[in-house]
């Protein structure tokens, strides 16, 4: 069953730069997909279209049944409640504890605090940070901070987890740990994962579906793929 359906999608920025050109991509529920490509290849544009940070110039982008191109700014929240996003730079609030950072989103959605607690604890358990609930982000290592970010992204049981270079700031060992956490979420919770990365080791080791983008064009889409950006032409 399709969770993401992108058809003939193009994105041209106001300065004339082409982000994506005529991209077709289908991703089913429960899949784990790497989006790879060099810097400025268009993979970040694709990721941004999925959580409607950008709008396509042409074509269709349907995520979880929502037509992203037609989504008004004031209705973006409807899409975002169905997905979780993890970034390279974590985006944690430094003045809030680990617990508060993860609970933050649920509180702004108006959930009861009795309902929030079990959800937050479950999410923290998934990322292995149950014993750090009262720590502040600056008391945590980079890997731990990224785990908090992942916990925040999955706390509301999203159908889709979007990761934009989640290991970009981490050393290889920590990157492996983070990838294990994300892989577990995909396997145990059935959450679809779309991850943009240019970490060769991770892509080659995990043997997942790999979509390669170069100059805004999809140049390959392989089921147990590996990182071969330059050879894919």
């Amino acid at each position: 069953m399709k969770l993401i359906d992108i058809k003939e999608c193009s994105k041209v920025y106001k300065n004339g730069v082409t982000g994506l050109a005529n991209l077709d991509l289908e991703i089913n529920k429960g899949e784990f997909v790497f989006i790879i490509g060099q810097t400025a290849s268009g993979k970040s544009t694709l990721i941004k279209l999925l959580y409607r940070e950008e709008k396509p110039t042409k074509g269709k982008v349907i995520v979880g049944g929502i037509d992203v191109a037609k989504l008004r700014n004031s209705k973006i929240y409807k899409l975002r409640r169905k997905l979780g996003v993890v970034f390279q730079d974590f985006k944690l609030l430094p003045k809030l504890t680990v617990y508060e950072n993860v609970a933050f989103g649920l509180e702004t959605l108006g959930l009861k605090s009795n309902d929030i607690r079990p959800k937050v604890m479950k999410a923290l358990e998934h990322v292995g940070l149950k014993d750090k609930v009262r720590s502040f982000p600056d008391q945590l290592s980079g890997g731990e901070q990224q785990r908090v970010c992942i916990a925040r992204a999955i706390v509301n049981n999203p159908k889709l987890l979007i990761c934009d270079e989640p290991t970009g700031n981490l050393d290889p060992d920590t990157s492996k740990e983070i990838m294990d956490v994300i892989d577990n979420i995909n396997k145990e919770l059935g959450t679809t994962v779309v991850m943009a990365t240019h970490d060769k080791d991770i892509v080659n080791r995990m043997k997942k579906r790999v979509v390669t983008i170069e100059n805004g064009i999809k140049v390959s889409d392989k089921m147990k793929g590996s990182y071969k950006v330059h050879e894919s032409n």
Partner: protein
Amino acid sequence: MKAIRILNRSIRDAFKSVFRNFSLSIASITCIAITLVLVAVSLVLSANVNQFTKDIENELSIVVYLKSDVDESKRTDIENSIKDMSSYQSLVLKSKDEWKKEMQESLGELNTILDDMEENPLLDSILVKVKNVNDLKATTKAISELDGVESASYGKDSVDQMIGIFKIVEKAGIVIVIALVLVTSFLISNTIKLTIYSRRHEIEIMRLVGTSNSAIKLPFEFEGLFLGIIGSIIPILLSIYGYIIAYDYFDGYIFSHMIQLVNPSQLLLTIAITLVIVGGLVGMLGSWHAVRKYLKI
């Protein structure tokens, strides 16, 4: 229930934020307080100018002198004609004997001249007040055309000029208050933009996790409201104590008994309520305007 929880959370967060971003809050509050002091001063001035204008307007009357041959029935006819006029408010008769007595009292040594005259050379008169000072001119003209009326006058040029000046002062007061409110909301909007800028990551994360725009805006709007209300406290205290001290110092009057100051109890409650409302609203509008920028609305 969900809406109530979001509202509760917004109020709690707004309150926290006022203290958490204390230095920026102080900047906003100071900015609101300074401009509201100016608003308070112009409100006090315009209220007093208004009162003074009304007092003067109430004192303005048309003096109608009747011809010496007008008898009592004729005078009643003239009175009735004046009462039928649409602008008529009230009238008082003043006989020539009353005029004589009044003149004798004020003229001092000259009163012997009036005593020496066998017949009173003065004329009977009617003092007419109109509902609206703008009708003075037309009413005076209409009365002077009545049969049996020797003359009717109201001070013409000087009164016209005074009324003109009061109107300008009144309008200028309104313009100044509106301009100050606009300037205040602009300043508050900019100060709150600084607060919001320092919290842009928070807004970004709220947007990412699917918080609706209205739920994101709400805490900031409450924060603006709180800052506005807190900012109005000092101007309110200043205007209450300042005005009461000034009122007592002048004993309620400026320039002998010509200008009576507005009673503090009537005025200050209105000013306090106005300042709280203006402060709160302007703070809220400023926040609303500032947060929009970060929501791409």
